[in-house]
């Protein structure tokens, strides 16, 4: 099950897929609201292009909709949809390698002001670190980028990541370590200034 506490008001992804198998478009709407931002963000990071990411996210969810009749409730929905999203992003990247050299520059999204972060100086420092990490993510190789997005942004388990990426658990571990080490190195100056 994808959701720990399913209820009538909060159906699991598998329950929504079952309703979609009966052509329930409202169930599809709930699924979209639940996952579209995560899927879009993942694809945008992998492709580096927002407009292409939007097209691929649309394709990804259309595939989900069209597979509604054959979906097995035993399959972990998030793992499945991120597998589709990853494949679409990689295929698109292969077909536009030259364009990728000219990644569009997008403004860094404004961070939300979460509780306990009212100190403007602290917020400014954290925002600086966020910008550094955001830029460092763009410099990671696709192999490292996808595992760190799935782990540290999507909070997936190593098993789920291994399944999505199609590699052994040990490879997930070593790629994660390499990715995090690169990000930590990118932020070294920021850390030194913090001391």
């Amino acid at each position, binding site marked *: 099950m994808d959701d720990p506490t399913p209820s009538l008001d909060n159906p699991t992804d598998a329950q929504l897929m079952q309703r979609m198998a009966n052509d329930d478009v409202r169930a599809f709407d709930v699924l*979209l609201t639940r996952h579209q931002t995560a899927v879009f963000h993942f694809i945008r990071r992998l492709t580096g292009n927002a407009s292409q990411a*939007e097209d691929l*996210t*649309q394709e990804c969810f259309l595939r989900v909709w069209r597979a509604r009749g054959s979906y097995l409730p035993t399959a972990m929905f998030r793992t499945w949809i991120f597998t589709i999203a990853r494949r679409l992003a990689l295929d698109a990247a292969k077909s536009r390698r030259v364009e990728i050299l000219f990644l569009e520059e997008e403004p860094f*999204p404004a*961070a*939300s002001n979460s509780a306990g972060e009212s100190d403007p100086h602290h917020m400014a420092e954290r925002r600086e670190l966020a910008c550094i990490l955001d830029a460092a993510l763009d410099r990671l190789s696709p192999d490292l980028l996808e595992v760190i997005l799935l782990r540290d942004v999507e909070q997936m388990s190593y098993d789920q990541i291994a399944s999505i990426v199609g590699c052994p658990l040990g490879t997930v571990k070593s790629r994660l*370590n390499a990715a995090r080490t690169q990000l930590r190195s990118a932020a070294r100056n920021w850390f030194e200034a913090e001391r």
Partner: protein
Amino acid sequence: MNLDNDNDCNAVLAELSAYLDGMLPEDRTERIEQHLAKCADCRTERDRLEIVMQELAQLPRSEPSPDLRRRLLAHAEAEVVFERTEVVMVQQGSSRFIHRQIVPAPASPEPAAESSAGSEARTIVSYQSSRESTTTPYRRIIHRP
């Protein structure tokens, strides 16, 4: 980094990420904790890695345009209508015309072929599922005298 413990430090740093995720076996976790207790440099690296991981989890996500949801729902609606649309070809004398009608939702019992043809149809010569049809797009061909 403590030069005497360079090898220890390298081994610990190589596993720090998995350690913070709780993905190491008990004996290796214990060894890393023993090393961290006595190595300030590795503790610093651990703290930095933790901050990086926390910050990544809080990075703002880019949002798709609000139009995406609207487009997808419209696609889904249209596909349902398309899949439930029955296209019949009616042959009356020497002229033919096409008739489209929406088939009820799957929950309702499948109507008998003749009754679903409507009162206009006199004879049903053939019936094909639109999803399986390979030779003609028409689910039914109705011949009228």
